[in-house]
């Protein structure tokens, strides 16, 4: 594991939807500037854990969260923490590309503006270009920045969403199955992009695609469910080790396709 201070640490996380105990006792440490993949069968709480990291779960009524998520040594669930600030610093890319029904330019600029950007138009233009380059989309859209973001292809839309996320300079990027709606070529582009982004960002990615986890991630966390459908962490370690030499038989069963 990396020597540097971890980017984020989850301690004894329990998430309940009403009476349903969705995630039990998860403790996980995400190393800085690495890609951590979360894998596991459907319904094991991967998205739930991911959404707990930037407090997106707050938007769901009836959700209850116990435990701690330490970001820069501070529990983001402390009463004095503003979830809006948390979400600015921990960005998110969703499974289905969801650009705003605005121009490509506005898609990227909006997040910057609402976060109190006080610069000139030229500075904003530069920021937008930088974000689009960062998301490997610039060359494809530089001539049509004022067309609707919805006019792009699915893979381009997803990269636009990534550009939008990095434009507000987050420290961590959460991705929930970012390539599951895309074809293999677009998927590979997104994976390349993730590798590039990992130089600057800590990335946590949920995926159902074993090869993708193996190809792209540095660390892998395997989740599973117990007989009450409650999700929990089974095993966490360097991706290399999880895929070649898993310690837990359930992990081995899952990655070899004999499970879930």
């Amino acid at each position, binding site marked *: 594991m990396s020597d540097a201070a971890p980017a984020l640490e989850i301690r004894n996380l329990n998430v309940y939807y009403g009476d349903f105990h969705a995630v039990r006792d998860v403790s996980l440490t995400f190393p800085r500037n690495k890609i951590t993949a979360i894998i596991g069968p459907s319904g094991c709480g991967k998205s739930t854990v991911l959404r707990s990291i930037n407090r997106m779960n707050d938007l769901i009524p009836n959700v209850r969260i116990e435990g701690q998520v330490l970001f820069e040594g501070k529990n983001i669930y402390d009463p004095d923490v503003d979830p809006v600030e948390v979400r600015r610093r921990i960005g998110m890319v969703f499974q289905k590309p*969801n650009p705003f029904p605005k121009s490509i330019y506005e898609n990227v600029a909006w997040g910057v503006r*609402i976060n109190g950007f006080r610069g000139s138009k030229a500075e904003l233009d530069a920021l937008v270009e930088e974000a689009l380059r960062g998301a490997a989309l610039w060359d494809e859209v530089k001539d049509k920045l004022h067309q609707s973001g919805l006019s792009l292809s699915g893979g381009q839309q997803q990269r636009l969403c990534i550009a939008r996320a990095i434009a*507000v300079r987050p420290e961590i990027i959460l991705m929930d199955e970012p390539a599951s709606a895309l074809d293999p070529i677009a998927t590979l582009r997104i994976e390349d992009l993730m590798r590039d982004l990992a130089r600057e960002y800590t990335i946590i990615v949920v995926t159902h695609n074993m090869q993708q986890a193996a190809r792209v991630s540095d660390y892998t966390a395997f989740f599973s469910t117990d007989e009450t459908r409650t999700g929990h962490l089974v095993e966490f370690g360097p991706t290399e080790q999880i895929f070649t030499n898993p310690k837990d038989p359930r992990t081995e069963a899952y990655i070899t396709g004999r499970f879930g």
Partner: protein
Amino acid sequence: MNAAARFHPNLPARHRRARWGLVLFQSATLFGIVVLMALLYNIVNGAFGLAAVRYRIYPGDLGLDLTTITALPPEQLRGLLAAYLSPGQLRTLEREKPLDQRSADELARLVVERVLRPKVLDTWPLVPSLLHTREIVAEVQQKYPDAEVRWMAWFNQRFLSRPQSSDPIRAGVRTAILGSLWLVGIAALTALPLGVAAAIYLEEYARRDRWFNRLIQTNINNLAGVPSIIYGILGLAIFVRALEPVTSGALFGAVPEGVTANGRTVLSGGLTLGLLVLPIVIINAQEAIRAVPASLREAAYALGATKWQVIWHHVLPNALAGIMTGTILALSRALGETAPLVVVGASTFITFDPTSPFSKFTALPIQIYQWTARPQPVFRNLAAAASIALLVMLFVLNGTAVYIRYRARRSQRW
């Protein structure tokens, strides 16, 4: 018997049932169309047709032709007025507006109204007029030997531009149209912001698991179905009586000169209609807000937007088309309302236009109702003509709603 064969036998029966369904739906649609056609027929039938008109002085006797009278030189028209009106009448006219400043149109109208003085004795609807023209002419000649049979378009430009009058030839609906516009405008100005604000609260802030929020929601749904007369009684109690100083304009020293409407103003009427459509506006706006996909909100929240930024920048703009169409459709209901306005105290006979929120007022449906209640048949023609005016206003409103929806459909995809 193999498995595939077991699926087969009921296929003809299923097709038969589908055909019956089709017949049912088609006949329901056809019935609706027939009813609609009957309604239009009824109105158009009344708004045009033959009339028996008696003149004090026949145009022919003066060598005039009614269709070209406005083309006459103004001097000739002034001459006619001078020759046939008493000095007193002329003085009154001069005082209103000097004759030599009046246009040929105005002068021609004066000649018709004051000199020729047509009076409608009887009228016939459009269809009998077309089918039995000769019989009608004969009947008129026999019953009213001194009358003339004329084609009348009761719905015409002068009808729209003239105020109410007790003389059917001169009566118009300008006062009523303006009253209706004021009412709908005031209703829109109250119901739209209140309705949108309430919808935002209910959709975005209120927690649905709280019993009182559910109670509010249920009440709004029920209020949308409350009969309009009850809103009228509410408006009478609140706006006309309790808030009289405000709605009469007295509080602002804005009572129109010489008219004390005692709170029975166009403001009270508009506010009452605003209340009437408020629940519908809220429900429509809620639906429009709910239709904004959750993925869009999540995208905005995930960038660090506050709730207000999400609502203001994403939810409202994307719900706007739906909110506007819903509101416009609700307002077209308000446009046709009669009962609550009667209760709130719309005037049945006024000849001056509403000029401020504190004016007395009447509205098109009230005007129509009032005309249908008159015994003389000619007022039924006026009612039909006013109905055309009302329907045109409704079509314009609904057309706007359709257009907005069409534009929104084209511009947004998710």
